[in-house]
């Protein structure tokens, strides 16, 4: 890893000197440890992959290095990206740089903490139900989840394949946009990557937000939202209105069903995806097993952590005979209803503005005994993944305890440009004040 980074840095120096530097020259990156790099370990925060060395590069790694980014580190994460606090890693918890007694959020907690602490220019995360945006909000950095299909998943270890998406975490919206454009676009190695051109119009063009129709979904401002976050967003909305944006009240009536549908579908997909870890071809193997069956069972039971096993069990249960229609099919139907809510909203507005999280960063250990309560901390982020839409968390000040809070911008499918444009405006208006 270090050797590869030094070599790449040397190449970048030479290209800068020759006047041929790529668009990301000077960018120092960290990569969440579920994105593979040839010759490097990729653990997914799990004992079962603790010694796994990738024989190939993820497409995003190839594309970022092609633009002269230098990748210097892999970052800790919740095991297989399952968690909202980064306490589920086999290698230990990550702490929040703003308050070390608090969690950084998850599952891309290591990436967000590294960016917040200034250890790297930016980092890559992955977002299945908020795993880029929620920790970005908790750590006071920018986190963008692109539209599903926008960025290749080749070389991203799978959690829930119809949800997972790689995205940038950065100190500024501009950096996030630059990384996004370098990574995005069709990849023949990922058959679910979209055959659409990546927008070249960028968010720094100085274009004003006058006339931009910003929807406020009332379900995201209901009970359970911390008062300080509500106040900060109310003030932001007032500024945006003063800057010429048109504020529209909208409703996403199926929001309260999103978490339930999300946990059924993602655990079902995970139970299938994680069946590959059986100790036969790679990963942890329990030795001295008397039979193949025993080797499978012991390798998995000793290799996976508690939360991963819980989700495999839930996913297996909802897919099992007699329960498939009641749970899995039902959840897929509700997924349709959640999508329709957004389609309806986007007939009257160009993007949506919501809090990213209902609270600021909570304390380590505060929610570990209660998995359902932990799941509910993703209440404002999971709907976006059910619908496959792009969304970004942008810092929006601090609460009374001086902890960062984030505002979420949700765009229509493949309209990252509007998301980035509004994010840039929010960031600039905060700097100017």
């Amino acid at each position, binding site marked *: 890893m270090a050797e590869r980074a030094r070599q790449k840095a040397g190449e970048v120096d030479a290209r800068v000197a020759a006047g041929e530097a790529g668009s990301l020259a000077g960018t120092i990156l960290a990569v969440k440890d579920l994105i593979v790099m040839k010759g490097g370990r990729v653990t997914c925060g799990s004992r079962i992959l603790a*010694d796994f*060395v990738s*024989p*190939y590069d993820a497409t995003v790694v190839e594309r970022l290095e092609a633009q002269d980014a230098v990748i210097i580190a892999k970052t800790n994460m919740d095991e297989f990206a399952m968690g909202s606090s980064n306490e589920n890693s086999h290698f230990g918890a990550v702490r929040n740089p703003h308050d070390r007694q608090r969690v950084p959020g998850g599952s891309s907690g290591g990436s967000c903490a590294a960016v917040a602490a200034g250890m790297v220019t930016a980092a890559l995360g992955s977002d299945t139900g908020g795993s880029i945006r929620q920790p970005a909000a908790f750590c006071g950095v920018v986190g963008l989840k692109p539209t*599903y*299909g926008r960025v290749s998943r080749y070389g991203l270890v799978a959690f829930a394949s*119809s949800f997972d998406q790689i995205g940038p975490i950065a100190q500024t919206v501009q950096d996030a946009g630059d990384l996004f454009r370098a990574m995005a676009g069709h990849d*023949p190695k990922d*058959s*679910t990557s*979209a055959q659409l051109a990546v927008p070249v119009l960028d968010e720094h063009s100085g274009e004003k937000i006058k006339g931009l129709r910003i929807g406020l979904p009332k379900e995201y401002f209901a009970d359970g939202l911390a008062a300080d976050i509500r106040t900060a967003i109310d003030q932001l909305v007032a500024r945006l209105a003063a800057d010429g944006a048109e504020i529209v009240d909208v409703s996403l009536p199926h929001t*309260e*069903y999103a978490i*339930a*549908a999300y*946990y*059924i579908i993602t655990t079902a997909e995970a*139970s299938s995806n994680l*069946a590959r870890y*059986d*100790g*036969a*071809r*790679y*990963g*942890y*193997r329990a030795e001295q097993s008397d*039979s*193949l*069956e*025993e*080797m499978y*069972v*012991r390798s*998995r*039971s000793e290799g996976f952590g508690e939360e991963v*096993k*819980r989700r*495999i*069990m*839930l996913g*297996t*249960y909802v897919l*099992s005979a007699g329960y498939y229609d009641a749970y899995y*099919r*039902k*959840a*897929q*139907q*509700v*997924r*349709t*209803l959640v*999508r329709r809510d957004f389609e309806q909203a986007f007939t009257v507005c160009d993007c949506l503005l919501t809090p990213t999280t209902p609270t600021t960063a909570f304390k380590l250990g505060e929610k570990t005994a209660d*998995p*359902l309560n932990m*799941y509910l901390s993703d209440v404002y982020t999971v709907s976006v993944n059910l*619908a*496959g839409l792009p969304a970004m968390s942008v810092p929006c000040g601090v609460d009374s305890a001086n902890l960062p809070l984030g505002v979420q911008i949700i765009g229509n*499918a493949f309209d990252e440009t509007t998301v980035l444009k509004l994010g840039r405006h929010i960031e600039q208006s905060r700097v100017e004040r």
Partner: protein
Amino acid sequence: MAITIAQVEQVARLAKLQFDSEEKKRMAEQLNLIVDYVEKLNELDTSEVAPTAHILNLTNVLREDSVEPSLSPEEVLQNAPRQNNSHFSVPRVIKEL
């Protein structure tokens, strides 16, 4: 509809996982809490709603079947816990009589 210890054992068999008796009890309790919560979906009438399996509506993404470089056998086997003659090696499958 509460999940019993027997059901936890049955699902664990399907998932190729094993738990001790304390873990089974805790798993049953936690799964029951989560399943009780997701029962919320039954408040919605979805009889006329088509399921969404995938948001991109892609079907059958095809390409030319051309020969391209792939990983070498050494690379494929580099993470094998055990190997033998360029094969993955696992415990004996066929029992001796």
